[in-house]
């Protein structure tokens, strides 16, 4: 078995890359993709610990996370399409209507 440290550090690095993507990029779609990266990093952590504990709970939780991610992707993309229809932009800096 791969030592747990390696798996968890890989998961941590991918999670941090996802966080960096959400902070740095201003294109809403790329921010959304970075959120999917974060979800995947968490899935990896669940599977790694689950297989070392010998429990199927990790895999079941990953199953549910995947389903919720699918539902969230559909609704989120619907929101992005609505934003595009009304504002003609997907750049987060241009959506300043509710600023002070």
């Amino acid at each position, binding site marked *: 078995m791969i030592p747990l440290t390696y798996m*968890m550090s890989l998961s941590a690095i991918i999670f941090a890359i996802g966080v960096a993507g959400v902070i740095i990029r201003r294109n809403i779609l790329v921010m959304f993709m970075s959120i999917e990266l974060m979800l995947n990093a968490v899935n990896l952590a669940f599977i790694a610990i689950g297989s070392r504990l010998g429990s*199927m709970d990790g895999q079941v939780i990953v199953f549910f996370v995947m389903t919720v991610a699918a539902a969230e992707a559909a609704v989120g*993309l619907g929101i992005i399409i609505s934003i595009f229809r009304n504002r003609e932009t997907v750049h987060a800096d241009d959506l300043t209507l509710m600023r002070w």
Partner: protein
Amino acid sequence: MPPFFFIFLGALAIVSALGVIVQRNPIHSLLALIATLMTVAILFIGEDAVVVGFLQIIVYAGAIMVLFLFVIWLLNLQVETGPTGHLALKFFGSLAAALLATELFFILAPPHLRVKFTHEPAGYGSLASLAGKLFTDYLVAFEVTSVLLLAAVVGSVALARRLPGTDDPRAARKAAS
């Protein structure tokens, strides 16, 4: 899984994840994300979570990413040209992410993580054991998930449809003539 294989897959995952956030062309970002998803799915299969690994490819890389692709097409997103600015944001953002990674490493590495390692039972990761858990211990969550998916379908159709006569240029012209 032999260690060199894991190091190769890990490096591939990190490089493609960096590719997602660095690329200017949204479709190249999407391809990098698909590569990351496939690599993570292979890691799942290496950890004996075979069914979940294949489900990751079928659901995530095969369906959700196609949805992203359709939206990129629909919005006709082009390559982001020109100076992007926000240098201070980029610098402090990357710094914060690096700090987060270090902090997570210290919290989640085994000396701190109290995980008691046991053996894997027979049939671990097979469809039968996954289904067994889903339909006994997690039955309520399973049923609620189906309602959640229905809500997501209805919600996304309601959000993305065009209301008749509002912003469709052809419908506006037909209404005017």
